[in-house]
């Protein structure tokens, strides 16, 4: 701390700008601790004396009533100290985050395999795990509903459906020159945060609990722990130093661990640690929603959409959890970047007897975008146009003179199907720029020629945009608090409601504070997120971390600065306007004698000491709430988002059509983060988000067996991207000179989730490569993830379509395509 001041002279410091301020590529605040192994995660905390270890026994069936439970043998197993069931819960038994439906331990009906029924505290985690096998539970099996189709047929929902409507889609489609329909199934995704779910709970002397959680939502953990114990929220403190990855998986899913550990800590009076094994984590905690999407679209001969009907059905699992908001967000994003004109969008929340699906980076947005990106490719194949051309024509804000509104004026094409105006038009230029910088059109023709000459290896190319709405769609969550102290040595302590999960929130907010006081970043120490420092916080989610907490921290800074400046004005007998902070100093322009103005430079620490001696407050809380947002769910209209973040990616792939294997060869990304708070951190979010999205759409496949058991329950059979999957040629750039048109923190834009969806370009490129087998006349069905198996199926389907089509055309004696061109495509089935 303050090392630089000791090494440099005051004069030297005065002449240089502060280090690591806003907009600098400051390193993650924990970077050195990460590489030396000194960063402490929950499981690394030295265990309190007598700490017990928790394991939880889960349901063996997807849907069953419990007939009887006998846990005597569990209690008598080696090392076991305590065993609890729902009857041991002194307070609330339901820990559903928004709506009820999530019992902390099963009461009578089990609704997914692995649902917690009883919990064990033992001397060691191995003993706790081994004791579970001694449970004697009798079940009465019921018929489970395990898939979206069955749930739709039986109207089995966790929440009622919701509709958004603009104009008359049905009529627009019926009047359109072209009409297409399609459907897709998109599987969910396991978060696979490297640090699994974990909570350590220590009883306090006030009959409360100190909770060390790996959670994106400490306030909710605090509330739920208090509720299950039946004590006041003020009896519970939750601390989150850092998470080893969150990605949405620790928004609601961390709370059950804290609650169960707290119940056992309450019963035993001893500290209890509940760390899930990887397999339990994969089976017992929620994942991204599967979606089954369908569309019907009407469009003109240029491929411009005139009307669309879209149905999005999410597989929500056994409880509402966050599914209402997630399916809503899918609906808000099924237009992605395109003006649908007349549109009807239905979002359905299917209940299934599988673990409740939950938040995951993008929060339904990715699944919504997939349907319209599929639609774009399908329209292009239908018309024989390049998919990029069709995408560009349909962008918001791209005006076509011949397309008029009902009153005859040219349609500005800038209002979403839910009534929000897309105010800042970034994408038309951004996509143009990326198409040029990635040499899209040159490579397109190279690839066509490559494919014409390559018999089995086929290349594909796709350039897809994203437009992602920023704000919680639940209005009250759009608030944040911060707490800042300045100590008498001039060091600054920063705390806010946001949690650090690797995304660099702590360093970004610290940079904001450094900027506010014009001091070096190293002067600021960020402390662990704690519910007793900043209360009633929102989850660190929805990409909102720096938008909300940065603003709250700035508010606290402004309060302190205002007092400091008032004091300084008084002390130095100048106007407040003659005082400012610069280069680690307070700068006072003294001008009482008009003839010779004098500037006084007071080192920051010296000035703070002076302020302290003069009894100036050096601590403040800050608060922020996002302005302008509203959404009326009754009519499906409003402005749910403060603004949109944008980006586009161009991906090139190669596919082995004999095996379905593929490789991503090159990816170019241009992304809009407004005015970047920290370009290095932002690039890291973009690259990491893209690869995670690529994993979702390629190798990461959740599999469930016929009984509803997750068979992809280990990293041995669930494959997230490895180092070799990173594109060999990976070019990521931030959109320059693009400040947010809304007054966000230093005109920056949120960056956590949006880049995830750039990976749709990979899925689209794979489809493009397969489509080449039909000379780009066929848009092959391709679900997600596009595993090698899925790609080979698409290859086989495309080949049989092409064979059938050619036969028909030969029979009709009216070949639609250049005969030479077809001859150059050797038919694989036919051999040589």
């Amino acid at each position, binding site marked *: 701390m303050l090392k630089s001041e000791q090494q440099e002279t005051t004069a030297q410091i005065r002449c240089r700008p502060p280090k690591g301020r806003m907009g600098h590529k400051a*390193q*993650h605040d924990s*970077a*050195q601790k*990460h*590489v*030396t*192994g000194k960063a402490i*995660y929950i499981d690394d905390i030295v265990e309190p004396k007598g700490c017990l270890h928790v394991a939880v026994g889960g349901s063996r069936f997807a849907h069953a009533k419990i007939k009887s439970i006998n846990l005597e043998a569990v209690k008598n197993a080696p090392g076991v100290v305590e065993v609890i069931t729902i009857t041991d819960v002194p307070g609330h038994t339901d820990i559903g985050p928004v709506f009820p439906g999530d019992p902390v331990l099963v009461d009578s009906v089990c609704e997914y395999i692995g649902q917690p029924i009883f919990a064990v505290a033992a001397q060691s985690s*191995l003993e706790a795990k081994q004791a579970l096998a001694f449970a004697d539970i009798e079940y009465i099996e019921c018929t489970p509903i395990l898939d979206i189709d069955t749930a739709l047929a039986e109207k089995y929902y966790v929440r009622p459906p919701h509709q958004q409507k603009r104009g008359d889609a049905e009529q627009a489609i019926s009047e359109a020159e072209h009409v297409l329909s399609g459907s897709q199934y998109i599987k969910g995704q396991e978060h696979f945060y*490297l*640090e*699994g779910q974990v909570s350590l709970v220590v009883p306090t002397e006030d009959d409360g609990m100190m909770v060390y959680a790996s959670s994106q939502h400490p306030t909710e953990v605090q509330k739920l722990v208090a509720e299950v114990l039946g004590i006041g929220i003020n009896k519970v403190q939750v601390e989150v130093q*850092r*998470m*080893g*990855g969150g990605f949405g998986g620790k928004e609601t899913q961390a709370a059950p661990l804290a609650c169960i550990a707290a119940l056992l800590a309450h019963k035993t009076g001893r500290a209890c640690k509940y760390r899930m*094994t*990887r*397999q339990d984590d994969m089976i017992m905690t929620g994942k991204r929603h599967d979606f089954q999407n369908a569309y019907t679209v009407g469009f003109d001969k240029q491929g411009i959409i005139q009307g669309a009907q879209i149905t999005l059905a999410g597989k929500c699992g056994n409880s509402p959890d966050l599914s209402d908001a997630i399916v809503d967000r899918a609906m808000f994003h099924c237009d992605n970047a395109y003006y649908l004109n007349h549109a009807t969008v239905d979002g359905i929340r299917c209940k299934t007897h599988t673990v409740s699906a939950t938040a995951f980076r993008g929060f339904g947005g990715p699944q919504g975008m997939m349907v319209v990106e599929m639609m774009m490719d399908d329209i292009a194949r239908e018309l024989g146009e390049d998919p990029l051309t069709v995408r560009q024509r349909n962008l918001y804000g791209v005006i076509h003179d011949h397309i008029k509104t009902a009153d005859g004026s040219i349609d500005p094409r800038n209002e979403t199907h839910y009534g929000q105006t897309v105010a800042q038009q970034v994408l038309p230029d951004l996509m143009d720029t990326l198409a040029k910088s990635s040499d899209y059109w040159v490579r397109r023709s190279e690839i066509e*020629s*490559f494919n014409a*000459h390559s*018999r*089995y*290896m086929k290349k594909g190319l796709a350039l897809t945009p994203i437009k992602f709405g920023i704000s919680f769609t639940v209005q009250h969550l759009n608030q944040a608090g911060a707490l800042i102290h300045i100590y008498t040595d001039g060091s600054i302590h920063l705390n806010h409601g946001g949690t650090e*999960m*690797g*995304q660099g929130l702590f360093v970004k907010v610290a940079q904001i504070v450094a900027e506010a006081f014009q001091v070096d970043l190293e002067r600021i120490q960020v402390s662990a997120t704690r519910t007793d420092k900043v209360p009633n916080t929102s989850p660190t989610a929805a990409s909102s971390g720096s938008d909300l907490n940065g603003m709250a921290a700035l508010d606290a800074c402004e309060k302190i600065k205002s007092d400091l400046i008032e004091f300084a004005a008084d002390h130095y007998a100048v106007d407040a306007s003659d005082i400012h902070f610069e280069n680690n100093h307070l700068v006072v322009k003294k001008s009482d004698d008009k003839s010779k103005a004098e500037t006084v430079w007071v080192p920051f620490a010296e000035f703070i000491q002076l302020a302290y001696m003069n009894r100036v407050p050096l601590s403040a809380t800050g608060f922020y709430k996002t302005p302008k947002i509203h959404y009326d769910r009754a009519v499906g209209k409003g402005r749910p988002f403060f603004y949109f973040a944008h980006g586009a990616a161009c991906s090139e792939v190669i596919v082995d059509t004999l*095996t379905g*294997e593929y490789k991503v*060869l*090159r990816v170019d990304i241009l992304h809009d983060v407004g005015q970047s708070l920290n370009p*290095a*951190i932002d690039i*890291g979010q973009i690259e*990491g988000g893209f*690869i*995670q999205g690529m994993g979702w759409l390629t190798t990461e*496949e959740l*599999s469930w067996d016929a009984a509803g058991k997750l*068979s*992809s329950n*280990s*990293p041995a*059979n669930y*494959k997230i*991207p*490895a*180092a*070799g*999957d*990173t594109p060999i*040629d990976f070019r990521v750039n931030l959109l320059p000179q693009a400040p947010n048109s809304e007054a966000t923190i230093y005109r920056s834009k949120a960056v956590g989730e949006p880049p995830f969806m750039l990976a749709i370009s990979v899925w689209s490129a794979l489809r493009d490569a397969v489509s080449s087998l039909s000379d780009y006349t066929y848009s092959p069905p391709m679900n997600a993830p596009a*595993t*090698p*198996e899925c790609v*080979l199926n698409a290859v086989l389907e495309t080949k049989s379509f092409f064979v059938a089509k050619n036969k028909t055309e030969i029979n009709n004696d009216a070949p639609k395509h250049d005969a030479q061109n077809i001859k150059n495509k050797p038919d694989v089935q036919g*051999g*040589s």
Partner: protein
Amino acid sequence: MLNFYLNGRAVSASHLCADTTLLTYLRTHQNLVGTKEGCASGDCGACTVLLGEYVGTQWVYKSVDACIIFVVQLSGKSIITVEALASNGELHPAQAALMAFHGSQCGFCTPGIVMSLVAFYEAKLSQYKTRDNKNQADSPNSMAVTRQEIETALSGNLCRCTGYRPILDAAQAMFDVDRFPRAQNTVKDTVKIWQPKAPACDPQVNNGAPDDVLPRMVSSKKQAWAPTEEAELKRLIQAHPDATLVAGATDFALKVTQQYQSVSKIISLNSIPELTHVDVTDDHIQIGAAVTYAQLTQIFLKYYPEFGVMLNRLGSQQIRNSGTLGGNITNASPVGDTPPVLIALGASLELGGPSGERSLPISQFFISYKKTALMPGEYLRRITIPKLKEKEYLKVYKISKRLEDDISAMLFALKVTIEDAVITAAKSGFGGMAEIPKGSKRLEESITGKPLTENTFEQAQSAIDQDFSPITDVRASAGYRNEVAKGLIIKSGLELLQDSVDAQVVTRVEQIHDCDSLKCLSQGNPLHHPRQHLHQQSQEQPQNLGPTPAQPSLRPSFRPSGDTDAEV
């Protein structure tokens, strides 16, 4: 007694339970919590540490997963964890580079990534010293590293945050000593940690030693031994027929870490020289049962190029450093990567046991699902593989969801003899197609005696439907396994037909590693117009058969800055 070094300090672990893993030992017994548990199944690499073995006159280190190594396997070894790298605050170049490139986000995988990079760095450094015999020991920045080498070094480390790009960049840049110097003022400490005085347990000392001298651990009715010669092993097996033999334990350890079973007796084979040795004779390669995959990679790349290439996709670097060919065979998984290839190659197994030794063709070793021909008290001693003769060719294909560190959905190996453009002999091996690894008689019959043409292989595809009825599981559907097996039969035919002198031809996505292969692809050199005559090759250059230049090669497009023209 069971002794080893931990961060340069001699430790004794004689009191531990037999089934204590190194990770549990580090985190629980030593409070070295920098080494993380991400999966406890050897899939994520968060627990990567360095394991040193005393070779000749010095300790040589490799990366291993601490979660699936038992402490008993460490007898006489040296372990280094992340805590020991920067004891005086000076970072190892791998750490410094990772920081400089913003290579950590949540940081949980980072210690493991650091250890893999350090293993790579130190191996490169000693390679450099050995090869050039130069005095500037700490100047490896004239060395070229390829992206493929880096990917290999990191193949067992998952990162969910960064997308790996900054880590790959750091791995390349860390060799630049001007930018990331090796700590100078901690050399003394470094030597103490990395090269402790002498092996804690010299294998020779314990020849025929009584039980209390034999490296072993005893605790609460659990026992583990690390015998140092085969005679001891035989005696232990007879005295403790219920003991489990482990070599790498990369699969067996999952019983403890994933199924929470207690294992009361373990015998480690790692310290028996006879079982950890490879002999290359005129006609055969003879491999001890406890030889690791990593020991075999270079040998296989030389004698069975495509087997060697596939070996680089078996598990991860950490798994290859621990896991053994013998374990892969005796584990008898239907999706083990090596048994189908060994079947195609006609390997034989040497079994030891109470009534002496016997030999068995590997094709007769697998009886039914996970059941082998091993009799009670018998153990696998040695694997013997015939070298490829002139006019013999081996093709190996592995299909999995992810290219790196994934278990096969399906694996196909084919050995053919081609004389005057006629296939005169064929032997195949398939994994993932049945409850045991096995060949397809009908495929072999179908192509034997036929001309080497595409048509021959097209005709042979139907053998798959007749010889196999695979199952649908988490890795693939039955339908895909069948389709891809047929696709690979065609592909093997085309590859055998192709003019193999043209190494630019890319016929598999696994061959694409770097900007050179991209360039080659954009110049349009895909597989087409197969020639009807196989290019004649001498036996000395079998690596030209496969289109993959598998050995680390110079890639000018992927070299540390400031580099000139050094070769690897």
